[in-house]
């Protein structure tokens, strides 16, 4: 019963998926591109490196745009979109009464373990998103919506590998 009660606090997943699909469709209709997230972090990285070490940045292809004069890479579509995600999540969380500072983890592991795992996972995701030209939302979700082969490859690779390693990581979650 407890489980049901908690689950019912969230929106029906199919309804949420439908609305998310409409948001994605609107994104394509208005701006010609899908949604994303990791690109915004890349903008922040490029800006940081461009500010801290401009000479190094201008010598490396990857950071070049951060060092060049003119518009800051922070003024990018994805940065604004991710700021929207932050506020959108905050508003939704506030309405549902879910605003709370906490580390969510399985009872079998400590908060510290969870945080270390989270950093490691983040690092892997950061590296992977650069290889895959986008993360789950940018490459896989938006890519699938426009039926790009890259989108399907990314999606299958992400979920396939996660399933493959799920058994070894089970302590982290269940």
């Amino acid at each position, binding site marked *: 019963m407890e489980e049901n009660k908690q689950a019912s606090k969230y929106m029906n*997943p199919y309804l949420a*998926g*439908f609305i*998310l*699909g409409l948001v994605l*469709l609107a994104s394509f209709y208005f*701006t*010609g591109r*899908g*949604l994303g*997230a*990791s690109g915004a*972090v890349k903008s922040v990285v*490029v800006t940081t490196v461009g500010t801290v070490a401009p000479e190094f940045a201008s010598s*490396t292809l990857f950071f070049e745009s951060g060092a060049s004069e003119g518009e800051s890479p922070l003024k990018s*579509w*994805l940065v*604004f979109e991710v700021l*929207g*995600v*932050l*506020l*959108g*999540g*905050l508003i*939704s*969380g506030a309405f*549902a009464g*879910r605003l709370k500072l906490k580390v*969510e983890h399985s009872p079998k592991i400590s908060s510290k373990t969870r945080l270390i*795992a*989270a950093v*490691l*996972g*983040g*690092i*892997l*995701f*950061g*590296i*992977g*998103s650069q290889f*895959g*030209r986008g993360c*789950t*939302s940018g*490459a896989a979700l938006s890519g*699938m*919506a426009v*039926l*790009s*082969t*890259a*989108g399907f490859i990314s999606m299958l*690779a*992400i979920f*396939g*590998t996660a399933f493959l390693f799920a058994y070894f990581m089970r302590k*982290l*979650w269940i």
Partner: protein
Amino acid sequence: MGPLVTQDIIGGNWNFVLAFILGLFFGGVLEQAGFSSSRKLAGVFYGYDFVVLRVFFTAAITAMVGLLFFHYFEWIDLSLVYVNPTFWPSALTGGAIMGLGFIVGGFCPGTSVCAASIGKIDAMVFLVGIFIGISLFGFTYDWWVDFVFAGDLGRIKVYDSLGMRQGSFAFMLIAVALIAFYATRWIEKRVKKVEY
């Protein structure tokens, strides 16, 4: 006829306003669906909660069907819509690394932003991790650059890769999704519930 921004029907800085508004809805929906909880997300890999599969698949199919009909009625010019190019070796490798990151970290970038916004400390730490990861990649870019640009197949569509008609592929994808939805309901009922 869309997309509006790329044809300068909506100009310049409105693009950023639109990005923000779309982001608001994106974040709101993710949070409402429960994507702000890493243990709920990880459930898909252990069979106790398939919310990721449901939301993800439903969203992709809704947008895909919408785009195809928009294209058919000429409301949108699909040639102006961004299609991510396929570099298959790096897409596969990147996907595999991200998959490992997903099962270890429990988030993906989009959901971690959303979870961080409602105060999940693990999500904030995850975001720091992404920052470190992208920096690492950037500093070692010279090592990877050849690999990242290898195997260029261009902006190829999946139905062309498979040699199918567009419509047939769309129908097949919908059928697969529906089968997956019913199958996962069946699995979910038989797997021990996990409290989170």
